[in-house]
């Protein structure tokens, strides 16, 4: 096991290295001026000084070497081009911790409710509970997030005035984002859990158990659930990093100072240092969660043996 983990951590670093390198060169190859937010044409001399200061006057590969050196030796991601004076690392940490709250809660709530609904649907296949779950699932996927967010904001904050419209800092600010963000997760898990459970319930060992007279409850509890959840863990990998990278719309509508904003806007602004920063963050998280899931997988499923 220890050997497996060490090997995987080695892989992790290689993957991260490739991601960072690829992103670095890709982002420099797309057109766009990182100083465009200054709105008007900067005087020539000013522009040159700017480029020099941020090292943009050097070739991409030179910039890459400098960046890598700073990253590896000092863990330094540099300073934002768009927000002068702000360290990328600080921005990432501050904003990620904000995104983690509604995102993390929504993920937990979404998974719990989704799994529950999935089980209900699978056990009542083609009966009304199944249809209701299916309806929720379809709603959760087809209703665009911005619609749900705006409607909830309008009714709960403007009409009923029970929750604040936008802002950050108190628990009330988190309620609506959590509801909105968990909606899609609920739908996804409900659907997958149902499908997997039905798969598992057709397996020989379940039939054997039933034939031996094990009660339905016990069959579900002892055999079906675990085997049905396992494949769903793969979903978790994307969703954990999605907390930080995919919450742009919800953060915008509810005024949450999270990371989603930087993830989208840094690319539009060609804020190179911030692009790389968000990429490093998201990729590291992604790879790490992947590792955790893989380890969990191999522990929980006896059929997958770790060499």
């Amino acid at each position, binding site marked *: 096991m220890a050997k497996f983990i060490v090997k995987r951590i080695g*892989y992790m670093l*290689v*993957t991260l290295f*490739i*991601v960072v390198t*690829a*992103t670095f060169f*890709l*982002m420099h*190859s*797309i*057109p766009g001026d990182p100083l465009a937010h200054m709105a008007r044409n900067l005087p020539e001399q000013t522009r040159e000084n700017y480029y020099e200061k941020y090292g943009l006057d050097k070739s991409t590969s030179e910039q890459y070497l400098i960046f890598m050196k700073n990253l590896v030796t000092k863990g330094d991601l540099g300073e934002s081009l768009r927000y002068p004076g702000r360290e990328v690392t600080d921005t990432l940490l501050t904003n990620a911790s904000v995104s983690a709250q509604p995102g993390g809660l929504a993920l937990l709530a979404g998974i719990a409710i989704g799994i529950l609904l999935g089980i209900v649907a699978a056990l009542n296949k*083609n009966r009304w509970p199944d249809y209701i779950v*299916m309806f929720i*699932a*379809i*709603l959760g*996927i*087809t*209703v*665009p997030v*911005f*619609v749900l967010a*705006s409607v909830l904001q*309008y009714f709960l904050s403007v009409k009923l005035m029970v929750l604040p419209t936008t802002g950050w800092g108190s628990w009330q600010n988190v309620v609506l984002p959590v509801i909105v963000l968990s909606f899609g997760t609920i739908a*996804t898990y409900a*659907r*997958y859990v149902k*499908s*997997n459970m*039905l*798969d598992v319930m*057709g*397996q020989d060992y379940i039939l054997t158990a039933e034939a031996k007279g094990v009660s339905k409850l016990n069959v579900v509890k002892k055999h079906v659930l675990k*085997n049905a959840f*396992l*494949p769903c*863990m*793969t*979903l978790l*990998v*994307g969703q954990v990093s999605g907390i930080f990278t995919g919450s742009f719309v919800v953060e915008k509508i509810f005024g949450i100072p999270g990371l989603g904003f930087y*993830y*989208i806007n840094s*690319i539009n602004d060609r804020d190179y240092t911030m*692009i790389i920063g*968000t*990429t490093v963050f*998201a*990729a590291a998280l*992604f*790879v790490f969660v*992947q590792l955790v899931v893989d380890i969990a*997988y191999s522990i929980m*499923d006896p*059929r*997958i043996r770790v*060499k």
Partner: protein
Amino acid sequence: MMVNHDVTDRMENIPDEKFTIIGIDKDAEAPTRPRVGYWRDAWRRLKENKVAFAALIILLILVFFIIFGPAISGYEFEQIDADAINKGPSAEHWFGTDDLGRDLFARVWQAGRVSIIIGILGAVIASVVGSIYGGIAAYFGGAVDDIMMRIVEVLLSIPYLIIVILISVITDSKSLGTMLVALTLTGWCGIARLVRGQMLQLKSQEYVLAANALGVAPIKIILKHMIPNTIGMIIVAITFDIPGYIFSEAFLSYVGLGIQPPSTSWGALASAAQQNFMFYPYQLMFPALMIALTMLSFTLLGDGLRDALDPKLRK
């Protein structure tokens, strides 16, 4: 040696008269019930599923309107009318008009052409590529699996927006093909991981081990045994991905790579209606309804297909 002699001796002692020729029984080896192939059996079972069949009919109706709807409406889908801005549904404009006074009935169906193609093609391409990729990784395991999965991780970790912008710059075209490439380039990764997860479980199943022992080619094992047994999950993924692709296309429009005006799509219509949906909910409702209907019918059809294609449920 001695034992053998004994047996032959005794056999030789039976007289020839005791044997009669009864001819060949031609039916002896025939199966007791009609021979039904995997796919034919699946189709038979699908036909029996009323819900799935209803879904198929809804889909056909949608396709009908997508083909003929714009003509039925009597309006050009791109015709701007300053005097008919934001009018609700009426006898003149069945689905109302948008903020430039364009007829929404014509627009919704016109948009459906793009969305249906993108949604289905995108989901199918991603699923096929993803399943095969995930299957290969899971089947071979070890170093192959490691490398293949690291490639997926890399692809998923590079910011999507950068890749999309890059594609638009490189190809310098905004065709449907470019869009599909942009959409599916990383779209298959999720399914690949899902399928791999499932297949790792299947790999140690007895029938796979048996096929392996009998020397069946790996690709055949993946295609014949492992994928059919993951089909349930793949179909769920496809039906889930269809609205995903329809919305992603809207996102591509947002970064300037999506379907180019005057052409439009459901995702584009829905996001156009976003700002003012509180005042003109119908502008959002119709495209959203079409997306939901498409997804609903695919889900139900998918469920039917799943039951039909699942070898474990075969009778």
